């Protein structure tokens, strides 16, 4: 097929559109001036200010804790859901389960946040648990929508996987639990790692759901950033963004290499 000029130009523009704001974010984080858009010379001053911002650091620590626990929970639940949907054939509730792992992916966050908050409040009135809102409620909320993402990733990996391996193990007398832990789990591990990483970043990133279900003393990092950003641009947010982007770029590259190696060995 003849290659036209149209596609490369649009693709270049598209990638420029995707990356230009990120690049400018990084560039202006090294700006001396407080005015984010006027260049005042190179400086790492805002990184220093970030390290002295106690509220920001406390929020970052809370977010890291929440993200680690929520991503781990989400990976367990999501993997089980994906396994059940791909390996168990037909069962009652299958359609319901398929719906419940698709819907959270697109559900507007304000609905998820508000409905979970009302659930927690009602549960507290009926059962006395969870007592108040804070870390626990944010973890549950994040684990729920992250599990849906993990389930989608794990599902596509489980479907691509060569099922004859599992059959062979079963023919040799291994029980279902043993087949899962000795055959299935090692094969899908790279997908689960990238699922965990995705869940981790989604949890770290969430503002809306956390704002609804969080309580006093459990402000996550996005909540603190949002309250700062609402008042206008500030260079220390740029510095924070740069740090996050660097960490994410490294993590995604590792995950990408893992997945690529995985798909090569799978073929």
């Amino acid at each position, binding site marked *: 097929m003849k290659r036209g000029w149209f596609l490369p130009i649009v693709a270049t523009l598209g990638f420029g559109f995707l990356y230009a704001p990120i690049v*400018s*974010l990084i560039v202006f984080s090294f700006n001396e001036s407080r005015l984010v858009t006027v260049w005042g010379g190179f400086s790492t001053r805002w990184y220093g200010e970030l390290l002295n911002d106690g509220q920001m650091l406390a929020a970052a620590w809370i977010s890291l804790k929440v993200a680690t626990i929520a991503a781990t929970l989400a990976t367990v639940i999501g993997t089980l*859901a994906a396994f059940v949907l791909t390996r168990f054939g037909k069962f009652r509730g299958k359609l319901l*389960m398929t719906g419940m792992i698709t819907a*959270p992916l*697109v559900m507007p966050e304000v609905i998820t946040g508000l409905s979970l908050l*009302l659930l927690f409040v009602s549960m507290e009135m009926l059962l006395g648990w969870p007592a108040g809102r804070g870390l626990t409620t944010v973890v549950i909320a994040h684990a*729920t929508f992250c*599990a849906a993402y993990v389930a989608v990733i794990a599902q596509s990996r489980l479907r691509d996987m060569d099922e004859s391996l599992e059959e062979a193990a079963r023919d040799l007398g291994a029980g279902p639990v043993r087949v899962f832990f000795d055959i299935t789990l090692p094969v899908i591990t790279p997908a689960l790692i990238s699922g965990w990483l995705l869940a981790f970043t989604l949890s770290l990133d969430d503002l809306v759901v956390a*704002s609804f279900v969080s309580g006093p003393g459990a402000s996550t990092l996005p909540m603190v950033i949002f309250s700062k950003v609402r008042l206008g641009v500030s260079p220390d947010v740029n510095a924070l963004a740069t740090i996050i982007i660097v960490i994410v770029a490294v993590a995604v590259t590792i995950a990408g290499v893992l997945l690529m190696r995985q798909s090569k060995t799978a073929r």
Partner: protein
Amino acid sequence: MSALDAPPQASLLRPVLMGLAGLVAVALIGWLALPANIAVLLTSLVAVALACLAFTRFMGWSDRWMVIAIPLVWFVTFFLVPFFVLGRISLSEVAIAIPPYTSLWERAPDGTLEIIASFDNYLFLLSDSLYVSAYLSSIKIAAISTVLALLLGYPIAYYIARSPEPRRSILLLMVILPFWTSFLLRVYAWIGFLRRDGVINNILSWLGVIDEPLVMMQTDFAVYIGIVYTYLPFMILPLYATLVKLDDALLEAASDLGATPTVTFLTVTLPLSLPGIIAGSMLVFIPAIGEYVIPTLLGGPDTLMIGRVLWDEFFSSRDWPVASAVAIVMLILVVVPIMWLQAVQNRQEKNA
């Protein structure tokens, strides 16, 4: 070898012992390293799972249901049940209490149970033009953004799908990469771009294209940009997935039969990529309807979106019942697109 020697029937003792060991391990790690409330949560989750396992084994049921039950119960409890709670609270009235709404049941003096439920909140939504126009304006903004994302995303997805490896994988990774960085910070980045003294105005006036800075912040235009920007990967990925499966032989056949590239595109490529177009559009349209962060940070005071109305109703007015009614109506709006998305995905699974 050992697998052959193992007794085929499920034994009760081993899994229970392993489970107990797991419980102790989780409890130990939990209490030592995690905040107390999280440790309680994890320990009770494992304990509940263990109790269920012991019960199913004791009753002689298959373990299959046990495995199904864990994710099913979790999603039903924390995804499905909340919608019923939402519906229930949308029928109560706001009250000065903790929590700030009236109860649905009341015990009358003669001991009978009275149900107090009213559709007043929904009637209120209909009577106040603010809500109706917020819904309509949300749908309009989401639809325009979806079309813009499709127009930009389709050529990019097509270009990636037609690229040779390894460039294809690298470009794909480049599309996904921004999606992994903070959504909030990517929206924030556009403030620096669109402001009166922002990057775009600086470059344009330096080039001499404009004398007066363009007003871009706090307009609907900025909201469109923000939505297209943050949701573009969701559009590109499903499009790419259908386009990469496109059989070259079909395109060759069309051109051998004399079709021009435009005709080939319209009659072969476009129809075959329809599932990707629908999936991508729904993945942008549905969450964009309820978007809160983008209109708040980039839009102006007159940018009316229902997510913002719900947020203000909840956080500023503290009217939980009306906020719930707003959410229920929004839920009804997005249910049809969600079911459409699911139908498309199911059909693709069957074809795969």
